[in-house]
């Protein structure tokens, strides 16, 4: 069995069926990482106990115990999720050397499902970025073209899949941070409904927008992985009681009569030619599968980037106030004059530029005199947008849209222009604002060989429709099983 090319489902079936040992799988990926990740910089840390964890799964299989639905699958986790005893950095100098005393609920659930933690993946510092260039530990590179970004912020989680350094990974998505890198790297990325997956132990960027989710080779793997991490958590008051359906088992790729919505406001006019082609082919594929293409409208969509950045930065400025160098994290070496100087020294040295920029933006948007015009106004637009989406979903089951306006850009191309970088997120941020589940599915390739994804969005807690449509699209497009050069 070719372990590198195997899907999550194939691997776990093989482990459960005793065709392959979990330790063999873990060892295989560890060796690949050691051999080639220096080219991509997708991992920030390898779990030192990964072989022990794999051995435990094998022991369970051998003794006839149920090893769980993720039996023996090594999973790479974005270094934004706390892992007990294993340094967690958020790709920031601020948290260099921080060792959490606890693990995120998602990590606990992965282990409970029989997965083994492979390592921690690179990201934009505190998940603030769309290119993985703001990582304090160096940018991650796109395996399809190493001069290009893998996307962000979950760049490492996407790149390690494309480079076959892990069979599946966990990312987080605040404004597109799972879907956009998935699109850039040619993998599947799922942002669950807000409240579906526990945020406990996920280092907060913007609490009302953040969701962790799976990144996988295909939609079916995504369904299995999402099932394992979803559901109410007593440690996160914003998780929903909504039951977690057996998505994987219930995947139904029959698209006849399914209504696919196309947004009037996010048409192909906004995207480059290759993206437009990929998008149109996907729409055509759905039509051929018997789906009805309907036009829907979310009039406030054009304000999504502004609304998103104001809210995300406001919440971030508050969430990042705890990094003060008192209990953990970076502390300036030089003596400080007073308490304010102490804070300013610790924080200015610990945070990178983009993080500071967003803290500044958010502090301003919440400050007295501007609070109403920015934070409150954006929160009102947010409600309108959510309600408009609810109306749109009365007319359709799934909305099809591009993920980004163009495929992965070159490293360094946009980093000096924040507004240009922010505009990148025009198709992804609205689902976070509205709390909707979304998936990015590989849709094709640009002429330069870089992958391009398409995005599907469904109503709250209707991830099933996403998996159905994504699985149908995957079979219909039947993209060649290409791998990046040299992988």
């Amino acid at each position, binding site marked *: 069995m070719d372990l590198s090319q195997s899907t999550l489902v194939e691997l776990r079936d093989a482990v459960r069926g005793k065709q392959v040992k979990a330790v063999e799988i873990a060892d295989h990926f560890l060796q690949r990482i050691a051999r080639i990740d220096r080219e991509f910089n997708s991992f920030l840390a390898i779990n030192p106990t990964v072989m022990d964890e794999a051995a435990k799964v094998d022991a369970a299989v051998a003794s006839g115990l149920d090893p769980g639905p993720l039996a023996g699958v090594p999973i790479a986790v974005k270094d934004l999720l*706390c892992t007990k005893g294993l340094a967690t950095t958020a790709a920031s100098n601020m948290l260099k050397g921080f060792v959490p005393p606890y693990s995120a609920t998602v990590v606990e659930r992965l282990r409970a499902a029989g997965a083994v933690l492979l390592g921690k993946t690179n990201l934009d510092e505190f998940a603030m970025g769309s290119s993985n260039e703001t990582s304090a530990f160096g940018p991650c590179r796109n395996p399809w073209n190493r001069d290009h970004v893998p996307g962000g912020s979950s760049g490492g989680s996407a790149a390690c899949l494309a480079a076959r350094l892990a069979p599946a990974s966990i990312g987080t998505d605040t404004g597109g941070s799972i879907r956009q890198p998935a699109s850039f790297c040619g993998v599947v990325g799922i942002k669950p409904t807000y409240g579906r997956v526990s945020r406990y132990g996920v280092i*907060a960027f913007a609490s009302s927008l953040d969701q962790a989710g799976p990144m996988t080779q295909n939609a079916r793997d995504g369904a299995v992985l999402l099932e394992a991490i979803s559901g109410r958590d007593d440690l996160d008051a914003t998780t929903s009681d909504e039951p977690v359906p057996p998505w994987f088992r219930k995947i139904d790729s029959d698209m006849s009569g399914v209504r696919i919505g196309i947004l009037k406001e996010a048409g192909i006019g906004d995207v480059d030619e290759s993206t437009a082609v990929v998008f149109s082919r996907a729409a055509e594929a759905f039509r051929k599968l018997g789906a009805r293409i309907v036009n829907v409208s979310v009039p406030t969509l054009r304000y999504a980037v502004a609304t998103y950045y104001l809210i995300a930065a406001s919440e971030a400025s508050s969430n990042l106030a705890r990094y*003060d160098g008192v209990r953990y994290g970076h502390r300036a070496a030089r003596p400080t004059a007073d308490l304010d100087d102490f804070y300013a020294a610790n924080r200015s040295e610990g945070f990178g530029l983009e993080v500071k920029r967003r803290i500044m933006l958010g502090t301003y948007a919440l400050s007295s005199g501007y609070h109403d015009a920015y934070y409150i106004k954006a929160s009102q637009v947010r409600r309108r947008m959510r309600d408009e989406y609810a109306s749109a979903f009365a007319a359709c089951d799934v909305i099809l849209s591009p993920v980004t306006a163009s495929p992965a850009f070159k490293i360094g191309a946009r980093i000096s222009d924040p507004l240009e970088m922010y505009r990148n997120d025009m198709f992804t941020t609205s689902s976070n604002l509205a709390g909707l589940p979304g998936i990015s599915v590989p849709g094709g390739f640009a002429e330069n060989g870089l992958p391009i994804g398409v995005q599907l969005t469904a109503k709250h807690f209707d991830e099933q429709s996403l998996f159905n449509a994504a699985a149908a699209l995957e079979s219909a497009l039947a993209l060649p099983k290409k791998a990046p050069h040299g992988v």
Partner: protein
Amino acid sequence: MAYEAENEGFEAVIGLEIHAQLLTRSKIFCRDSTHFGAGDNENICPVCAGLPGALPVLNERVVEYAVKTGLALNCEIRRQSFFARKQYFYPDLPKGYQISQHDLPICGPGYVEFVSGGAKRRVSVTRAHLEEDAGKSTHHGDYSLINLNRSGIPLLEIVSGPDMRTAAEAADYARAIRGILRYLDVCDGNLEEGSLRCDVNVSVRHCGESALGTKVEIKNINSFRFIEKAIEYEIHRQTDCVLNGERVAQETRLYDPDKNRTFTMRAKEDAHDYRYFPDPDLLPVTVEKDWVEEIRSSLPELPLARAARFVAELQLPEYDATILTQERALADYFERAQEACGNPKAASNWIMTEVMRNLNESGTSIARAPVTAERLGKMIALIDKGVISGKIAKTVFSAMWADRGDPESIIAEKGLAQVTDAAAVGRIVDDVLAANPSQLESYRSGKDKLFGFFVGQVMKLSKGQANPELVNELLRKKLRE
């Protein structure tokens, strides 16, 4: 002597903010113990230490206690209330923000009634809101140390209207709030240990003016007496300020009990921009009507109502009723004692004298009093039945206090029962008359006043146990012979 602002044509406007630590087992947003006196940073976890990724989850009992208090303060209980983040940097504030209720707190407007200066007063309560406590900093010259055990202890902040005009009234308001909190068993009300904290807002204005003067806040005063003194000082200081043509500065001050004065803590110039916004980690707190009614039905009778009932139903004087109802345990004790004897006034007298004196001397709480209410009642009944005299009862009471004994067995053991046997008392009377021939002579020749002398002698010889009525009767008879 209390300073009277009115003397100068001024009146004071006083409002109080009282922070009450709620007596829950675990903290407001995490499962750490609230236990007072734990080791350094022993009761901390990722949530209350503000670790990356940790999230708050609201404690149900905190909400219950807030509703309970709100109902007792006649507050509107909001079906939906919200938590916000109040943002500022301080080393004992782990997250860089305090989770607190800002707009729309759980308890809306209400009022509290209490007795002050012999008259019933009503003070409005503007709001009562929930928040988390911060940790504790200790200062050691060139460094400070942070202990987070207190971080996340639930607080209910009760804000009064600017309704009070005198220092005494403000202190009585604070006492009334403390009494209610203790009645409800939601806060132990210990000012010294900081489980109850009082901030006072004081301003002065010319009598008859409706606009408020510049408000000065005095923080963290740790006794009711100091509340009164700090306000008196502050009224005096502000009045002088105005009289001297100076401006009263808007600022926060602290009270120094040793010097009996207040001093500037921080000027309002460096006021914070707290950048409040709703905490996205917590959903709105929803309190359904059913729950409110369930809590309402569990409310105990509160001090003022209880005192009124003691006066109306048990014919206690107002004074007794007020004293006895200050603490719920004391009022319970009184009720049990009076039920056991059927003599409320006697029970009240005994409690307000012997019981309270012994409690004070031994530093015990009423809950731990060695003489139970039932036994005290039984003893009073024995007095009323004539088994023992009031005087002997004091001996019995002391014995009960010392040995936790039952009054009847103590009386039997020590032979303290009154002698009501006419033959026995008659023999003592005979002995007394025989031993005092000259007094007998004088009495019979008209010195009536000596009757008392004979009674005294008989009581002395009987060690106080002879039934006084019987003694009188027999003496009268024998002296006539």
